[in-house]
């Protein structure tokens, strides 16, 4: 069965610190990979996605993620976080087939202090 592991449950950083959130998945075939963000009181929004091509994916608000196929990983990075990045971050995977549901990790809560 497919699964997604997010290793950090809660990350606390100061503004301007660098961020890396880990995500590993378990699936033997070709995958689509996603990072979603949920700001306090708001709905899930897509940060970035990978479905083919360049394994380094750039998303909104300065986030990027790198797909490393050999490690089954899709870690999220940002060089300098802001207080407004405080949110919950979810990694998700789906098989590379049209119209398939997402498998989500348990999420990482990021708290950024100013």
């Amino acid at each position, binding site marked *: 069965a497919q699964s997604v592991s997010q290793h950090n449950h809660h990350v606390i950083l100061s503004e301007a610190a660098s961020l890396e959130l880990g995500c590993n998945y378990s699936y033997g075939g070709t995958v689509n990979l996603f990072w979603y963000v949920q700001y306090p009181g708001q709905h899930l929004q897509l940060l970035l996605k990978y479905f083919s091509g360049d394994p380094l994916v750039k998303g909104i608000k300065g986030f990027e993620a790198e797909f490393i196929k050999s490690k089954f990983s899709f870690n999220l990075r940002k060089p300098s976080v802001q207080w407004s990045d405080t949110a919950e971050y979810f990694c998700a995977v789906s098989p590379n087939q049209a119209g398939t549901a997402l498998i989500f990790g*348990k999420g990482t809560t990021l708290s950024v202090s100013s």
Partner: protein
Amino acid sequence: EAEVAQSPRYKITEKSQAVAFWCDPISGHATLYWYRQILGQGPELLVQFQDESVVDDSQLPKDRFSAERLKGVDSTLKIQPAELGDSAMYLCASSLRDRWITNEQFFGPGTRLTVL
């Protein structure tokens, strides 16, 4: 910008009562998903529709949950009777069958259910 609409945003009910949630996906999105998100967890699929047909309901507790999308547009998820363990956020999402098979899903604001 088009969004997925859900109502109600909050629902408090007593156990053994019936509850229903409504979702209106982004216009033109043929695939609709209902997910359940328990506090501290990621969303988990309950049921998936392609147009009006159920594609996957393997994780839907069918003794108490039902879902329909009669005209292939909006959808209703029902729980009868509600149990304490059903307290969660119920999320609706929709996606477009794009030629790149990206499977990008757009989420609504959710319905927060509390069962007392």
